[in-house]
């Protein structure tokens, strides 16, 4: 092979790699990891058996469905993403992906993930996945995000669907326990996002997004964050109260819930950004730890059998 041919092949590979990376970024991989994890928790907590291959397919469909919603969101929000420092380097505002390609990609993945979930697992799980995607795109992105400071409160329900989907994939039904997990994420979302919005308020104001710190000010936001973290504490304990987990989970939920309240109190009395940044980081850790213990608690021979 000549030097020129090798050079062209290397350029091709680099080009393909960059393109693939941009399309992966459209799927919002960091959001996807939390979605997949909570979906997996729903799958693990649910009573009954699902073949490991079908369980993997269900998780794949949740991941792809979440990514599809992210891609459509990036297509719709490309104008405000270009204005904000946090989002201006995303593939569409940076000019690396054509908006039409991005929205087509999102729609194809959304239809593909819902169809595959229905055919491989069951149609209730597929319906819930479709509802989650539609809720995120239509209710949160298109309807609420630019209109009301309650955007994240109502729109946050979209991110609360995964445990319901995981549970429905195994059982073919929806019960009280997955609804408790849904409410847990629903109540966790506002303090999580408002912590971020507190130190990104300037960015949101520039883009004209009515996030609570922009519209009501930092003081009112911090107070509401505290209210939500207080309400979150009993919801965190709900899986233990409902008897789907053991005492170790209950203890962990109580400690993490109390720490989340402490973080909110620190934000309330902090005039700078430091406490808000720490609370944002802790909120992610909170959900990961809580769902990790939830999964471990249900794993045969682990915590559930010894500490209930």
């Amino acid at each position, binding site marked *: 092979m000549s030097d020129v041919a090798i050079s062209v092949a290397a350029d*091709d590979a680099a*080009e*393909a790699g960059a*393109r*693939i990376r941009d399309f992966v970024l459209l799927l919002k991989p960091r959001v996807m990891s939390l979605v997949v994890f909570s979906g997996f928790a729903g799958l693990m907590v649910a009573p009954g058996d699902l073949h490991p*291959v*079908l369980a993997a397919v269900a998780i794949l469909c949740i991941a792809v469905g979440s990514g599809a919603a992210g891609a459509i969101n990036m297509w719709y929000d490309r104008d405000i993403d270009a204005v904000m420092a946090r989002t201006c380097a995303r593939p569409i505002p940076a000019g690396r992906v054509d908006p039409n390609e991005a929205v087509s990609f999102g729609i194809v993945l959304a239809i593909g993930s819902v169809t595959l979930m229905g055919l*491989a697992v069951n149609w209730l799980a597929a319906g819930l996945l479709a509802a989650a995607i539609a809720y995120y795109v239509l209710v949160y992105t298109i309807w609420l995000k630019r209109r009301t400071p309650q955007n994240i409160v109502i729109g946050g329900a979209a991110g609360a669907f995964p445990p319901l989907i995981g549970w429905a994939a195994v059982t073919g039904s929806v019960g009280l326990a997955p609804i408790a997990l849904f409410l847990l994420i629903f109540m966790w979302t506002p303090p999580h996002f408002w912590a971020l919005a507190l130190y990104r308020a300037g960015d949101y104001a520039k883009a004209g997004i009515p996030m609570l710190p922009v519209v009501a000010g930092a003081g009112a936001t911090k107070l509401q964050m505290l209210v939500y973290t207080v309400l979150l504490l009993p919801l965190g304990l709900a899986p233990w109260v409902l008897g789907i987990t053991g005492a170790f989970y209950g203890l962990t939920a109580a400690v993490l819930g109390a720490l989340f309240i402490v973080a909110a109190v620190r934000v309330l009395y902090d005039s700078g950004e430091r406490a808000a940044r720490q609370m944002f980081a802790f909120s992610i850790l909170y959900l990961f730890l809580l769902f990790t213990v939830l999964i471990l608690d249900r794993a045969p021979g682990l915590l559930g059998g010894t500490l209930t």
Partner: protein
Amino acid sequence: MSAPAGDLRQRRQRARNWALLTVLLGLVALIYVIAIVRMGGG
């Protein structure tokens, strides 16, 4: 259209074709495995 621009377009098209082929083959394999599992009563 200039030659480098045409070349770039052709390279992008080729990269997209390979990506599409990979995805389609992956999907075929996945559906095959799902079919086997479901026929086995999984």
